[in-house]
């Protein structure tokens, strides 16, 4: 629905990457770092985000509270961007979207688990420290189960006051269906009850 009302701006990485890789552009493309030899920075991408979310100045009621969804930041590490550059990008976007435009940001990062991906760990830790809400999905510790696909941990954080209050946390388990996900409390799967 947001797409129909013109409220959705979608940058599709796969399509844009083919475009920028095979054809040279004069003005910097948001995914310009794909053409660069060394670890580039994400400034063109940030410029694209800022342009897209700039409020329209033609007198109509501007869009309020934009939401920036990034899927997914770990992929940028695979494409040669350093973890620090990604954190810089997140910082710039946060300053623009959250503070200036009073919006929200949602980013997705993969946890490498035991794969010992140091860059990914740097990114994950850096983001965890500056996030207000962390949603962590993981598989069950006992392995594969047909009825419970995994569990979701929700952690509320207050980055500004690190020691003021205890962070609230909740855990749910879920089962994925074709187009939706059903959540239930631990041990309360419909298959067991």
């Amino acid at each position: 629905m947001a797409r129909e009302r013109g409220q959705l701006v979608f940058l599709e990485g796969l399509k844009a990457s083919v475009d920028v890789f095979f054809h040279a552009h004069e003005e910097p493309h948001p995914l310009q770092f794909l053409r660069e030899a060394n670890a580039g920075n994400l400034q063109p991408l940030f410029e694209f985000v800022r342009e897209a979310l700039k409020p329209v100045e033609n007198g109509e009621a501007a869009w309020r509270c934009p939401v920036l969804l990034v899927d997914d930041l770990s992929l940028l590490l695979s494409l040669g961007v350093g973890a620090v550059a990604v954190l810089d990008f997140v910082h710039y976007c946060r300053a623009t979207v959250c503070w200036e435009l009073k919006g929200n940001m949602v980013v997705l990062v993969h946890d490498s688990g035991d794969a010992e991906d140091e860059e990914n760990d740097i990114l994950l830790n850096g983001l965890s420290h500056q996030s207000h809400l962390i949603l962590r999905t993981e598989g069950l510790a006992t392995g594969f189960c047909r009825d419970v696909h995994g569990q979701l941990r929700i952690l509320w954080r207050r980055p500004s006051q690190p020691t003021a209050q205890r962070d609230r946390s909740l855990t749910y388990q879920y089962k994925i269906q074709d187009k939706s996900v059903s959540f239930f409390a631990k041990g309360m799967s419909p298959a067991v009850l």
Partner: protein
Amino acid sequence: MAAVATCGTGAGSAGSMAAATSSSDVTSFQRKGPRASGTDSGVPRLVSIAGTRPSVRNGQLLVSTGLPALDQLLGGGLAVGTVLLIEEDKYNIYSPLLFKYFLAEGIINGHTLLVASAKEDPADILQELPAPLLDDNCKKELDEDVYNHKTPESNIKMQVGPVSSSRFGHYYDASKRIPQELIEASKWHGFFLPEKISSTFKVEPCSLTHGYIKLLHFIQNIIYEEGFDGSNPQKKQKNILRIGIQNLGSPLWGDDICCTENCDNSHSLTKFLYVLRGLLRTSLSACIITMPTHLIQNKAIIARVTNLSDTVVGLESFIGSERETNPLYKDYHGLIHIRQIPRLNNLICDESDVKDLAFKLKRKLFTIEWVQDNYLRQERNIYPPGFSYLLKQKDSAWGEGSLQHSTFLMSFLAKATAFASRLVRHGEPLKQTGSGRIHQAAGPRLWHDGRRQEAPGFLGIPP
């Protein structure tokens, strides 16, 4: 992993925002086949391509991998526009076989092939493809030919024309070569790295290895020239392009991730996979890649490569390992691990319940079967059902204390069948400890009068 969006949409009217680059589609995956659940209203656009069928699960167009057993495990086949990554086995014996099955399936169905290799000339690879097994209709026609033209006995198995069958997957005889006429009748493009790399090619330096850049440009050229992505106004292609890349990531491609742990160009392979997947998503093609992941020193790269591929299948052969002498595996040649299946256009993927799959290669058939613990089968009749037993796995295929243990036990107990499982290390049989009835799942009487009468769960033995 899921990301939950906190929506703060404003109530303002739709502004006319000009975005720098945006696509009108929500997903990069366009539905190419008809929805199987829908009625016959409207002619399906691309159903006329030979060798494809729509998926019953999500409507994607599928092609066969050349192995009907693998097709079944992947949810019907390989979706058009996706990458199938085969993690090679240690001595690279069985992964070329899967590679050749894929290409042979393309020839049988009349698809265009693109074969890329740094080690072998693609023409030689095509000569070594396995011969398809004839089904009865074709055999009958051949018998008539033999009668009429009196061809000698030795030519009976040769085909006189292309196999025109409407089946989705075919079986191949690994001991015979594909007939020469079929190769000559097919359309294929070869990319042999030593030939291509000698010519000079002016390209901006980016962190991709030279070989990868050339291969990407070659693939993109073929896709555009032959119209597989629909952007060429002259050429309207209604065929599938099957791309096969052999030993990607090996040192022969100029990449050093298999040689050292901290390499200079550690992003070369991952960037290649990303751009390749971008090319595939917008064209009628399917790609198989074999990669020697057991040689990659940096484990993080393997995880990234897995995330960047759609379907990942790992092969582990028993040659040279201690499993070769394990009586459990005496019929099989190796294990096959389905590591990842993509979620296309829906949230759930077609995961099967069985996780321990082994393959065996007979001359005509490459079969994949679930490996059962032999102890279980033998002693099912020794320990009568309905009793409680001490459960311990002995000499099983998995390591001690692994996750597979607990899931196997839990899933086993959850079954509604009556027999109980093993295994007691003591010599004499145990005395019966329970009442003989194992309560499988809580029934309606659980909440009969507002109080819990029995605890739910698998091992709740009623008093």
